[in-house]
């Protein structure tokens, strides 16, 4: 698999179809994001563990908007790029996507239901993770028990903002969570449930299922499960998967005629 990615990267760079390719590299015995340019050795190329490519691509485009970029993108990266483009954060016209399907093991580790990009260049489509024990358990809980579950989970929160920082779709220039009038500043754990509910609402039409919020949580809070529930609910209401269709606006900004609420029509 990795050889095929290597070949695609070399082709893009050598042919001049891309000025640089954003991928991962193994350096100092660790895996990191890396911007490959023509002539770079691709021996270091790596695929896993994944890093979120969207925000890095955004920072590169901001520094040099006319650069012809390519990016090795997994399903979640692919959806993040679409969603970022839709929201004016990046310009996909200048970007070529090398679509990489995740392996079954990788999908399991991420608890990912859709472990493949829209167009697969490398790898084979495998089934996603439909549900987990925790998701089933949470669905079965009463409201009071759920509240206790999340209260206990978020009692560990040290307000690192890692979930927000790592999220490819947290794109507000001024973050309401840092505004003392909304979330009292300087408190650990941050006030419950406002901090986490506001974030959940903001991500309800944006979450692309990358799991980076949980991956970056130093307190092991099961955010992937929280957002899996939210994505399902959003989809049930609006038949909408963030990052799936570049031409479709978020139902939260359209009228009822354009995008009706599903429960009603059913």
């Amino acid at each position, binding site marked *: 698999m990795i050889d095929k990615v290597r070949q695609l990267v070399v082709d893009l760079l050598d042919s001049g179809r891309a000025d640089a390719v954003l991928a991962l590299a193994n350096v100092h015995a660790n895996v990191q994001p890396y911007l490959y340019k023509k002539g770079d050795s691709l021996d270091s190329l790596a695929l896993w563990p994944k890093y979120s490519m969207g925000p890095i691509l955004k920072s590169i485009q901001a520094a040099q908007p006319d650069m012809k970029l390519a990016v090795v993108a997994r399903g979640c990266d692919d959806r993040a790029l679409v969603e970022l483009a839709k929201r004016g954060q990046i310009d996909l016209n200048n970007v070529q996507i090398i679509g990489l399907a995740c392996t079954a093991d990788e999908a399991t580790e991420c608890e990912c239901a859709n472990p493949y990009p829209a167009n697969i260049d490398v790898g084979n489509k495998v089934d996603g993770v439909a549900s987990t024990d925790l998701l089933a358990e949470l669905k079965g809980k009463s409201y009071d028990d759920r509240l206790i579950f999340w209260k206990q989970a978020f009692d560990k929160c040290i307000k690192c903002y890692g979930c927000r920082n790592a999220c490819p779709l947290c794109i507000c220039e001024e973050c309401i969570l840092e505004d003392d009038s909304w979330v009292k500043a300087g408190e650990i754990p941050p006030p419950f449930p406002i901090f986490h509910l506001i974030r959940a609402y903001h991500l309800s039409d944006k979450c692309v299922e990358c799991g980076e919020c949980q991956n970056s949580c130093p307190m092991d809070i099961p955010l992937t499960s929280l957002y899996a529930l939210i994505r399902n609910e*959003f989809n049930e209401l609006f038949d909408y998967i963030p990052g799936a269709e570049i031409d479709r606006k978020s139902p939260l900004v359209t009228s009822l005629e354009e995008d009706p609420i599903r429960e009603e029509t059913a």
Partner: protein
Amino acid sequence: MSNNGFQPKLLAFCCNWCSYAGADLAGVSRLQMPHNLRVIRVMCSGRVSPEWVIKALSSGMDGVMVLGCHIGDCHYIDGNHRTKKRFAILAKLLGTMGINPNRLYLDWVSASEGVKFQDVVIKFVDRIKELGPTPIGAYQGVKVDR
């Protein structure tokens, strides 16, 4: 837990053009209503950010109502379309986090519906009395030793 004598603290966001006028009519018509409601007037129900509702519930409000113009009557054409969608997902989010979505109530009250205003308020107060005080209240303010 017995809810005898429990008087819920409730917040209502009413749009300027319809439901606030409806509330006004209820008042002028001297319709009797429980006094648990604090009303905030907004220009459109579409102006009510879900963050406001989250803030109110997180701050210990027992319930929040959002009242706007009927679909099709919005002064800003489709402001209340957005309200409807946002509050549909917000209700789901509350439930996911463990806050009973029945603490949130969205409805449409026109300027001529003073009686409907009275009716939805009475019903909402009863509903929250039934649910009891918000569990969030226990998580607010000065923490007490366990």
